[in-house]
């Protein structure tokens, strides 16, 4: 039998060409993040080069057209809304995951998980819209106006709840079965087993998930833009209207020019830095999990 004499390239050759092509593509993918940092920096440079960073916190107010760049009220709005949302979403998310794993009969658990997955798929603009048409009037009846920090926190909670539930669910799935069997053998009640054995064992995964979710909450724009009221002020009560950094960018980018625009890019850079910090901390916890 003779194999027809076709151009048999050696193993390395075809594969080498392919590998070079693939390496180019991978480099391109990896370059996107670098491009983002580059362009954000270059767009914020005009204002950063002549406005010292301290002025971003010490100026009289946020009026970029008049050269005033105080972002403190917006910063506090961002931090408070995120904090509030995390405080609410964490216990709810953990409870939801515990429900799926330990309390619900299998059919109900699947159903519940499916609902969580679908909730995760609802776009933020729809959450914002529903918050605006339903939640805000409700809150408004308690204390006008309806659009406020509280509404923002509630909508943000709803948005990040599925993420918390999903990550905790995954963390719980990683708890070795032997722990549970050991607890049952000792005659522990279900709650004692959960609080004493399962949750501590899943601690790293849960913490990492919460850090990541906090990052997501910090970066959320649409939902909070639609329900928080958009007044640049320090919130003195839950019912005050506030504007977060993200909402600020979204609202003012449309007409900002020159230094104003650069200032917006600068706030974007600050936001990115905060999120990346959280992500690295989360990564640290996750690696801790892998090493035991």
């Amino acid at each position, binding site marked *: 039998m003779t194999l027809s004499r076709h151009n048999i390239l050696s193993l390395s050759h075809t594969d080498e060409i392919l590998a070079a092509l693939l390496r180019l593509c*991978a480099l391109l993918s990896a370059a996107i993040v670098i491009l983002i940092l580059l362009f954000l920096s270059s767009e914020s440079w005009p204002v950063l080069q002549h406005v010292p960073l301290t002025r971003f916190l010490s100026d009289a107010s946020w009026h970029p057209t008049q050269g005033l760049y105080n972002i403190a009220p917006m910063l506090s709005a961002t931090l408070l809304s995120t904090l509030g949302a995390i405080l609410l979403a964490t216990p709810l998310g953990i409870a939801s995951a515990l429900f799926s794993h330990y309390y619900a009969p299998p059919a109900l658990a699947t159903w519940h998980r499916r609902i969580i997955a679908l909730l995760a798929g609802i776009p933020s603009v729809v959450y914002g819209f529903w918050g605006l048409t339903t939640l805000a009037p409700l809150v408004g009846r308690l204390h006008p106006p309806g659009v406020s920090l509280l509404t923002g926190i509630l909508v943000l909670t709803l948005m990040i709840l599925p993420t918390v539930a999903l990550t905790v669910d995954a963390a719980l799935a990683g708890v070795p079965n032997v722990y549970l069997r050991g607890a049952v053998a000792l005659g522990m009640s279900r709650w004692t087993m959960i609080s004493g054995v399962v949750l501590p064992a899943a601690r790293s995964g849960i913490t990492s998930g919460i850090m990541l979710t906090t990052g*997501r909450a910090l970066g959320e724009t649409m939902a909070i833009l639609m329900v928080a009221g958009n007044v640049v002020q320090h919130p003195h009560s839950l019912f005050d209207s506030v504007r977060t950094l993200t909402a600020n960018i979204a609202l003012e980018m449309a007409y900002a020019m020159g230094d104003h625009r650069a200032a917006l890019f600068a706030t974007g850079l600050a936001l990115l830095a905060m999120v990346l910090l959280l992500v690295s901390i989360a990564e640290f916890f996750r690696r801790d999990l892998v090493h035991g």
Partner: protein
Amino acid sequence: MAKNFLATAMIWLVALLISSVFLYLLSDMLIHGMARLSLAYLVDAPLDAGRSGGIAPIIVATAIIVLIAITAAAPLGLATAVLLTEFTRQKSGFGRFVEHSLDVLASVPSIIFGLFGNAFFCLYLGLGFSLLSGGLTLACMALPILIRTAVEGLRSAPDDYRLAAAALGMTRSAALLHLLLPAAAPALAAGLMLGIGRAGAETAALIFTSGYVDRMPASWFDSGRALSVHIYDLAMNVPGGDASAHAAALVLILLLFAINSLAMGLTRHWQRGRIHSI
């Protein structure tokens, strides 16, 4: 024991709360949206700043933006995933660099992508407010998801296939084409659906890249309005636009539900294992 009972009660309560909020939200959209939903709504152009008329140009614009995003991101994502799984060693510096930058990319907030898209695609590359700018920005956002699912799919293909193919003198490219990619196909498809879902839900990244224009786009260099942006505009800038917004929101939710369910179904099919006959 009392604590145990209390805990059980609270957890069931939370589950009930979550489900009811979900149902409330859904039924709210359904009830208010159904009132305006009709075939005419889907094929007509918007009138009176969107308060009446339909959403046809908006659906078209959304479709074009998502198509651009996927067409740009899928090949790039697949190539990167193949490199990461088949052509780099476990501890390779290059591989880890790529994976790390993709992890970072995955956590960048959507508004930042909007800023980047505006600075890079609209201004630096001169594409202006266009469907192209919006689509390419979304491509950057969808890339990490596509790569993650593709890597998972390829890694799940048994190593035995790779060794057996090599022992038969097959090139890596041939093994990829005939064995590994087909084996990973359901995972790749599921990832594609997830990427499409993410792109379709996006708003903040599109506001200052593809713009607000609600006319039927004539080309991908035209500005256009995506469905999510339309909802935002009606809710915030158009008094009396609520009714139309409800309908648009319903359309968006239904589309995304369909896509995400498809993705979930594909993932289940893939994980159940497969015997192909090709």
